[in-house]
């Protein structure tokens, strides 16, 4: 019995590789609306009894870099039991807005179940949308009712954003008419779109230029389409 227990303990020790303990593997961050670079930190500790070496740390996305910082200032990727570190993800955003997940993969010299031990750290970054439509599209059906439909464009926050220019894309003015109203200057606008004809499938777009100083909010757009009749 004791022999069987001993064998079980030995096997168990070999099956469970030492791991770095991360405070969290998913971090949600809300950046400023004008953010171009976002830093996300993942602190970790070697809580095991083994020395662990980080052999690779990589962000598969070209928009992201990964770095390591050690509180003890050692220039080493080897972490003895009890030692701490921080993985830092540096994300670069151009005109992106909204929410997106970015992953960093950390590979150590430990193996688990015969495979390389890889930890995935997820940065969930939100860049708030300061101005946008309440719906990204309007739709009608070929041969259906040509009912006017509305889109409300609203501005978040305390700073007004004015719409300077309106443009209809894809030659859609042959198929759609629209009326633009300022409900609350700098903050709320209403656009009412009415099809002129609906005899064939068509795609249109309405694009608005703004006076926002932040590049990603210089344009607002939504699409409209006349779709084929749905088959019953």
């Amino acid at each position, binding site marked *: 019995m004791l022999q069987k227990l001993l064998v079980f303990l030995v096997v168990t020790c070999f099956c469970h590789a030492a791991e770095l303990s991360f405070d969290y593997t998913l971090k949600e961050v809300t950046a400023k609306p004008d953010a171009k670079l976002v830093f996300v930190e993942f602190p970790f500790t070697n809580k095991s009894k083994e020395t662990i070496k980080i052999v690779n740390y990589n962000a*598969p*996305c070209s*928009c992201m870099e990964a770095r390591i910082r050690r509180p003890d200032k050692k220039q080493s990727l080897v972490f003895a039991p009890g030692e701490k570190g921080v993985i830092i993800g540096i994300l670069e955003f151009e005109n992106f807005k909204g929410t997106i997940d970015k*992953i960093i993969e950390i590979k150590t010299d430990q193996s688990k179940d015969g495979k390389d031990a890889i930890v995935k750290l997820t940065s969930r970054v939100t860049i708030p949308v300061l101005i946008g439509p309440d719906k990204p599209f309007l739709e009608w059906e070929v041969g259906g009712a040509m009912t006017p439909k509305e889109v409300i464009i609203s501005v978040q926050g305390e700073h007004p954003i004015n719409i300077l220019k309106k443009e209809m894309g894809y030659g859609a003015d042959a198929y759609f008419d629209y009326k633009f109203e300022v409900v609350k200057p700098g903050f709320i606008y209403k656009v009412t779109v009415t099809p002129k004809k609906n005899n064939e499938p068509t*795609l249109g777009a309405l694009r608005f230029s703004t006076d926002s100083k932040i590049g990603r909010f210089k344009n607002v757009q939504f699409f409209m389409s006349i779709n084929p009749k749905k088959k019953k």
Partner: protein
Amino acid sequence: MKSWILQTAVFGVIAIMCALGTYAIAGKYQRDLPCHPEDLKEHEVCLSTVLGDWGGDVLWVDARGGKTAKPMLKGALVISESNTDEELNHAAQALFKAKLAGKKVVVFCNSRACGKSAYVRKEIVSHHLHDDVYILYGGWQALADRDDLITAP
């Protein structure tokens, strides 16, 4: 002098024979990225499905972004997360026509873990420009050896 040349030649012949034997047994080296249905997440698709079951008749969307010149997939639309509004505006007509024609859309980025494909897919679907949109498992890594599909930068 002659003995080491002879030995080198003998080892070379053995190596060539082993290589030919391996080729005869196992066939050409498979560079394709392995893709198993059980590994696929929601909306993901294997390249083998796209080229085999679907006959390659899809609209490709390149979500890689980045500023450096790189090999491109022939006929692929470019929609990146960094300039989505602008690029979606340019690509919208092609997406809508593909939707009317019943042609599927497949989005790819650099690798499986880059996340851009999922974002671009969500933007296409949420704008109702197309509703049958997939993400290529492995991204560019799955396509990189397909010289028949790629154009040089």
